[in-house]
């Protein structure tokens, strides 16, 4: 592998990792704070991508489509929390999985009815179209740089929000002692509704901004769900910091797994088995640290 390829792949890996973080952070927040396993999380990624495709196509503008899509996702999140999720806080994980699996089926059917089963593509917005020439024979797409930048900004805002705002304080308090938080007059139900909506909006937003660099297709939700779960498990359930480190590792390993050629006894291990590499990483981490990198011991 030459230096140029290495550079490009590193950038791609980081960008993929940051996008994964955006999806996985919602998943880990919803689990860590409310104790809810939301396996429908990937569906919101898929919904986001389809929303981007239809809204951006309809209004003919990427940015208006993006803002509108975020609003739709927020409202959808608030509504779903009120309709289903709030009944799951005191239930066991099996019931949570069953209800959210039901949501996956419903969303998949609705997607098929509203948008059909075809594969679509979303054009890169004009403003971000093109590449930056880094050296004479090395260029990198502006859109991917922008996408990474947006993910980093959101990640920083999330850290600051949790550590330094009153809402963040309430969220951490609720995580530590739910009853005591209520007993201080804090309406934790309202906070949970907001966090759920925020979490799934992050997933939908990820789907929207990734639409221009990957195709929009029916199975994209389950694909991202599996990888996000790997990220959450490696990082430690409920840990945002863990999700960030795990997402970047998974992003880099998965990206390089697809381009490295490694022959062992004449068998080409990569890339035929590159899909396995992140699961190998997960197995390794779980063997060394069953609670994940930053998970609390139970």
């Amino acid at each position, binding site marked *: 592998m030459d230096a140029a390829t290495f550079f490009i792949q590193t950038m791609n890996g980081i960008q993929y990792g940051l996008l994964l973080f955006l999806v996985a952070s919602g998943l880990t927040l919803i689990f860590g704070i409310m104790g809810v396993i939301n396996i429908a999380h990937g569906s919101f990624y898929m919904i986001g991508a389809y929303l981007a495709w239809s809204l951006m196509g309809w209004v003919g503008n990427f940015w208006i489509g993006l803002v509108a899509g975020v609003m739709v996702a927020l409202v959808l999140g608030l509504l779903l929390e009120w309709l289903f999720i709030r009944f799951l806080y005191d239930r066991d994980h099996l019931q949570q999985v069953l209800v959210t699996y039901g949501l996956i089926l419903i969303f998949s059917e609705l997607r098929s009815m509203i948008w059909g089963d075809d594969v679509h593509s979303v054009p890169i917005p004009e403003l971000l179209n093109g590449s930056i020439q880094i050296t004479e024979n090395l260029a990198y797409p502006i859109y991917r740089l922008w996408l990474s930048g947006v993910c980093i900004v959101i990640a920083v805002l999330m850290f600051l929000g949790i550590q330094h705002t009153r809402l963040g*304080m309430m969220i951490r*308090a609720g995580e*530590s002692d739910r*009853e005591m938080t209520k*007993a*201080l*007059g*804090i309406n934790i139900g309202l906070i949970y509704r907001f966090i759920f909506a925020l979490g799934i909006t992050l997933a939908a937003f990820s789907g929207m901004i990734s639409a221009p660099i990957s195709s929009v297709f029916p199975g994209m939700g389950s694909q991202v769900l599996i990888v996000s779960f790997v990220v959450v498990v490696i990082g430690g359930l409920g840990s945002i910091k863990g999700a960030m480190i795990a997402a970047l590792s998974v992003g880099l390993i998965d990206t390089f797994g697809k381009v490295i050629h490694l022959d062992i006894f004449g068998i080409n291990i990569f890339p035929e088995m590159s899909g396995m590499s992140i699961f190998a990483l997960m197995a390794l981490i779980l063997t060394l640290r069953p609670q994940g990198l930053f998970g609390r011991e139970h």
Partner: protein
Amino acid sequence: MTDALMHVASLHAHYGLSHVIHGVNLEIKPGETVALMGRNGMGKTTLIKCLMGLLPASSGAIRLRGQDIKSLATHSLARRGIAYVPEGRGIFQNLSVKENLLLAARAGFEGRMEWTYDRVLDVFPRLKERLAHGGQQLSGGEQQMLSIGRALLTNPDLLILDEATEGLAPLIARDIWSIIGIVKKSGISSLIVDKNFSALAKISNRSVVMVKGAVVFDDVPTKLIEQPKELKTWLGI
């Protein structure tokens, strides 16, 4: 109706199928300090959980300032002026001392702001030195001070203290009793559970004794002291 701040009538409560509170009647007047006593497992904590809306009552009535509050959510009860210092203190381990206090700070039910962040730190100088510490780094006494300070910052009309001095060294426990005295002087009603009978008798206007989920005594502390035989069976002293 009476002028009671809180009025509990024929209250029953269950944990699943097990019937724990058996028809409790209780009244707390404005400014009154009420001692709640009884051996372990008699239902004191359970009764408090009902008053805080943390355990739904099966039947009976709970009224606050004459209003039925039985079906209100815990956070609404807190906003109506009830503050809670639970058994085990309930400190947020992942928040600093300062954050534990700031989280609670707000005006009381009728906009009262007697207890401010600064006043709480004046009353608890030990907390002042530990503001940046995490909740898990405090000693038992400091945790209890933080829990009481935090409760006061909600500017309550009723302070509920479960096992006020449990597990504290005598000197620290003495500090806690003097703080309870300050709370009383400021006109806040309180319901206090503790094992220290004589300290409770000194500070409280009324003693309430529970046996097996029912109230067996409810009168001034001096009347209870006159009943050594009952004291032995009810409280083991």
